[in-house]
C-alpha cells in the first residue's frame, strides 16, 4: 500500500499541475490575508461602527482564528480540484490502462489516491498557514492584542483548518471517481463550491419564509460549504451544529462519492 501511495504522489509531482495549483493557493491566501488584516482586523481593532458586520466584536481569539485561516475558501477549492484531477487525469490521458495493469485490484488504486490527495491537501493547508500565522501574529501583536497562539480555541482552529483541506481533497477525489470525465468533474466542483451554496441557500430561505417553518433553514448546514464553515469555526455559530458534525457531514459527502465511484470503477471496462 505504501508503494502505491508513493506511486500516486509521484504521479502528481512529476507533472506541472500541482505547483500551478499551489501558486494559486498562495496567491489567494496572500490576497485574503491582506483583506482580513487591513480591512477586517483593522476595523475591528479600531472599533469602527462598520466592523459590526464582521461579528468578531471584542473576541480577540475569534479575530486571530479568522486571520490565521485566511485563504481557506479558495485554498480548499484548489485542493478539491486537484483531488478531482488526480482521478480524471488517468482517464483523460488514458494512463488508467498502465495504472490498472500495475495494480489490477482497482479499489487499492482509489484508496491510494485518497491518501495521496489528503497528504497533498494537508501540505497545501500548511503552506497557507506558514504565510497567514506569522503575518497575522505580527500584526495582532503590533496592535496590542497579542498573537493569541496560546488560546486553545485558536490552536483548535488551526488543526481544523488542516482537516478542512484534507476533507475537501477527499471530496474532490470522490467526485472525480464518480464522474471520470475531467471537464464534468471540474465543473461540478466549481458549481458545488461557488454557486450551489448560494442557490440552495436562497431556496431554503424562501421555503422557510413561505411555510413559516424555521427548521428548514437548518438544512443549510448539511451543504458542503456550510458544513466546512461549521467545522472550522472554533467559536459556536448561533443555530449551527457542533464542529464535528460539520466534519462528519463533509467527510460523508467525500466517502459516499468515493465509495460509489470505487464500486463503479471496479466493474467498469477500461477501453
Amino acid at each position, binding site marked *: 500500500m505504501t*508503494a*502505491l501511495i*508513493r*506511486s500516486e504522489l*509521484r*504521479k502528481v509531482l*512529476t*507533472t*506541472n499541475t500541482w505547483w500551478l495549483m499551489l501558486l494559486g493557493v498562495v496567491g489567494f491566501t496572500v490576497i485574503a490575508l491582506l483583506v482580513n488584516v487591513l480591512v477586517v482586523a483593522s476595523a475591528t481593532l479600531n472599533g469602527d461602527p462598520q466592523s459590526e458586520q464582521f461579528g468578531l466584536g471584542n473576541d480577540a481569539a475569534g479575530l486571530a482564528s479568522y486571520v490565521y485561516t485566511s485563504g481557506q475558501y479558495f485554498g480548499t477549492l484548489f485542493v478539491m480540484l486537484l483531488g478531482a484531477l488526480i482521478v480524471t*487525469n488517468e482517464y483523460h*490521458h*488514458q*494512463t488508467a*490502462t*498502465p*495504472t*490498472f*495493469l*500495475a*495494480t*489490477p*485490484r482497482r479499489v487499492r488504486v482509489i484508496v491510494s489516491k485518497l491518501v495521496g490527495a489528503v497528504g497533498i491537501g494537508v501540505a497545501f493547508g500548511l503552506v497557507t498557514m506558514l504565510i497567514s500565522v506569522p503575518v497575522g501574529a505580527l500584526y495582532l501583536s503590533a496592535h496590542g492584542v497579542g498573537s493569541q497562539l496560546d488560546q486553545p480555541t485558536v490552536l483548535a482552529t488551526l488543526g481544523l483548518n488542516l482537516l478542512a483541506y484534507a476533507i475537501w481533497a477527499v471530496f474532490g477525489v470522490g467526485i472525480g471517481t464518480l464522474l471520470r470525465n475531467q471537464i464534468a468533474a471540474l465543473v461540478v466542483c466549481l458549481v458545488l463550491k461557488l454557486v450551489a451554496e448560494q442557490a440552495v441557500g436562497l431556496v431554503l430561505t424562501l421555503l422557510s419564509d413561505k411555510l413559516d417553518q424555521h427548521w428548514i433553514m437548518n438544512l443549510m448546514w448539511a451543504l458542503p460549504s456550510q458544513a466546512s464553515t461549521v467545522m472550522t469555526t472554533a467559536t459556536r455559530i448561533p443555530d449551527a451544529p457542533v464542529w464535528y458534525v460539520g466534519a462528519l457531514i463533509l467527510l460523508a459527502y467525500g466517502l459516499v462519492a468515493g465509495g460509489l465511484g470505487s464500486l463503479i470503477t471496479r*466493474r467498469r*471496462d*477500461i*477501453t
Partner: protein
Amino acid sequence: MGEPDGRIVVDHLTKQFKKVRAVDDLSFTVEPGTVTGFLGPNGAGKTTTLRMLLGLVTPTGGNATIGGRRYDELENPFRTVGAALEASAFHKGRTGRNHLRVLCAAAGLPDRRADEVLEMVGMTAAANRKVRGYSLGMKQRLGLAATMLGDPHVLILDEPANGLDPEGIRWLRGFLRGLADQDRTVLVSSHLLAEVAQTADHVVIIAGGRSVRQGKVADLTGEAEQRVRVRTPDAATLVPALNGARVEPGPDGLLYVHGTDAPSVGRAALAAGVELHELTTESSDLEQIFLDLTTGREQIR
C-alpha cells in the same frame, strides 16, 4: 496450478458490448517460449481479447488465464506479464523516465529498472524529455520499455509496429526475436501478417470476433500457391503448348501460369520455339492468404 508458468489460455471467450459482439466464443492457447502472432483486420476483436486477458475488460462469457491464473489474481503482475496496449497511454506533460518510475513505484520495483529498460529500447537520450515531444515510434518504444520493467516471462503487445518507420519495424523485429530467444512467451497482435510472419512461430487469425485459422506460420506459408510469371511476344503459340495449364493474363502482356513450374514452362516454350522475355516463380504472399481468410468476415463495427 497445473498450468506451466507462462502458458496463455483463452477459453471460449466472449464479449458482448451494447450492440456488438466484439469477441465470439474465441479459444486459443499460446505455449510458453513461443512467439504467437494474433492477427485480424481492424475491428476484429484483437484489442478487446487482449484487454480481457489483462483484466481490463470483463468477459461476458468464458475466461482467459496466464499460467493458470486470471490476471487480477497474479500476486505481482509486472513480474509475470508485461503488456503494451495503446501507444498514447501517457501523460503528455510527464517525461518518459518519470512515467516508468511511477510504474516502478506501483509495482514495487527499484527505480533503476526505469533507466535499464530505457537503455534496452534505445531511449536513454530521450528519457528526460516530456512525452508531448515524442514521435509515435518513440511512444511505442516507451510502451515496450514499460513491459520489460518486471523482467516478465510473458509479453503481450498490441500492434507494437503501428506508426513505426521501416527502420523502427526492423528494430522491433530484432527486439521480438531477442525476446523469443530468451525463451519468453510473446503474444503480439497486428493487422498485417507480414509484420509478424518473420518472428512468429504460430499465428491465431481472427475476423469478426471469431477464430478463422490457427497454426504454425510454416504451414501457412506452405499453402501459399505458386504461379509462374511469363512474358512472351507470342502468347498465342505458347498457351496451347502448355498442356492445358491454367493461364491467367496479367497487365502488359504478362501471363500467370498456374499448376505447373518454371522448368516445365521453359521446356514447353523451347519445344514450341517461342521466345521468352521473362520466366519467374512467384508465390502468392502471406498477405494474400490473410486477406482470403478474413475478407467478408469483418463488418464495419
